[in-house]
């Protein structure tokens, strides 16, 4: 069955992130000037405006904690008809808690979802060599 949910669109600012995700690695944009991470990535650092940016490879073994979440019982976007209840969470990275990422929490009963819950990044294969960073 083909993947019917939206596939992340790559652009000149975010392509290194999504290319890395397709290889099952987490790349984060980082600012050389102020040394802070910039996520989501952009054309310049959102903290100081510098365009002296680089990419840091955090590898494949990524741990995080649930910072906040919602549980959707209705699909608000096409393609998610068979995905309810859907947990959408803000995850803070264990190593860099200042970095917050949005993702779905997979393979858990919704009763178990709570703030502070420890999760690990997993790569959900979609199609055409594309993968989506997720959490479980």
């Amino acid at each position, binding site marked *: 069955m083909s993947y019917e949910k939206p596939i992340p669109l790559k652009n000149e600012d975010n392509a290194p992130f999504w290319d890395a995700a397709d290889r099952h690695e987490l790349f984060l944009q980082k600012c050389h000037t102020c040394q802070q991470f910039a996520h989501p990535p952009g054309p310049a650092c*959102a903290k100081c405006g510098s365009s002296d940016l680089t990419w840091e490879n955090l590898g494949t073994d990524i741990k995080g904690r649930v910072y906040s979440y919602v549980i959707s019982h209705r699909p608000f976007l096409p393609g998610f008809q068979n995905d309810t209840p859907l947990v959408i969470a803000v995850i803070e990275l264990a190593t860099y808690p200042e970095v917050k990422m949005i993702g779905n929490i997979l393979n858990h009963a919704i009763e178990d979802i709570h703030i502070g819950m420890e999760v690990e990044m997993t790569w959900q294969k979609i199609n055409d060599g594309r993968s989506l960073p997720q959490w479980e």
Partner: protein
Amino acid sequence: MENIKNKYAIVGVGESERSKKSGTTPLHLALDAARAAIADAGLETKEIDGFMSYSENDSCPAHQLSTYLGVRPKYVKDIMGGGSSTEMLIADAIGLIETGQVNTVLIYRSMNGRSGVRMGGGGWDVNMLQNAMDGGSFLIPYGAGSPGQWFGLFATRHMHETGLTKEHLGHVCVSFYEHAQRNPKAFFYGKPLTMEAYHDTPDLSFPFNKHDFCLESDEANAIIVTSAKRAEQLPNQPAYIMGIAARQCVSHAHYWTNVDEVASDYVAKDVYKKAGVTAKDLDVASIYDCYSWVVLRQLEAYEIAKRGEVGDFVADGHLKMGGKLPSNTAGGMLSEGYTHGMNNVIEIVRQIRHDYEGSDRQVKDCEVGLCTGWAGPDIAGAMILRN
């Protein structure tokens, strides 16, 4: 710029019929609302020389409206925008009057919000959404396509940190639905909500059930802004603008990267300073209520209740008539109607003018009122009015 405190006023408000299916165009609705506001103000139509609207590409342009009112405008402006646009356009109107561009401005929001373009989510082109929203590719592929989900991420964290519960969200809904029972024009007039019924309603998107979401309606609203000098020559009581914070933002367009701050935190300090009042001076409020939790978060931001005590404030009935700050007294967007906030502004004007004198809808000794706008956690505005 010098302080404009009390130098400008809202002199007329009006609305079209409110329905689920207007069967007509936004232009017809806007004409009805505009004529009602002009009659309320006691102005000659040709005195309106500025026209402004906000919309999500679902309205009619200001030049079109002015044309069918038979007026040649000196200034028109149509912006893309939802919540907090009313406050922003009022501030823009004041700037234009102050610099001599125009004398009197009519601002309107017209929408077939139920039968036409709906805001609640669904049916959108997902690639368009990813491109239209900065950082959209980090949200949309995860199914996060509705403000109810985005704002819910703020709500869950805030509830966790401050002890707010579903019960407290319910108190906001129950309080506003109670107000709607005094407003025959409210959508949920005749349909009160009990806490038991609230709790029995399944979640649409935790922590929100359908009562926590605002409703959708077909309607147009209009308000008229002019100088206090002109206002004093008109037949009716004006609502004077003590202070206005047009629009403020949080630090990042990807506001979900920091669910701990909202733009209202910045707006609150600004609007109180400009108006020269504090939360203690407020007698009535219209608090932007696209979702119940948004009200709770703003009660904290505007220092109406302390962080951690907001739940008790609403549980003790302080948003209801006779409470410390009766709020959204027409029912708000949770139970009256939905025009991205302008219906709430109209209600605060009517309370401040004592339009309901002699009825149980009038807030007693109502001299100073706050209305707040919330485009999202990222963008907000506010205005303080006085009798």
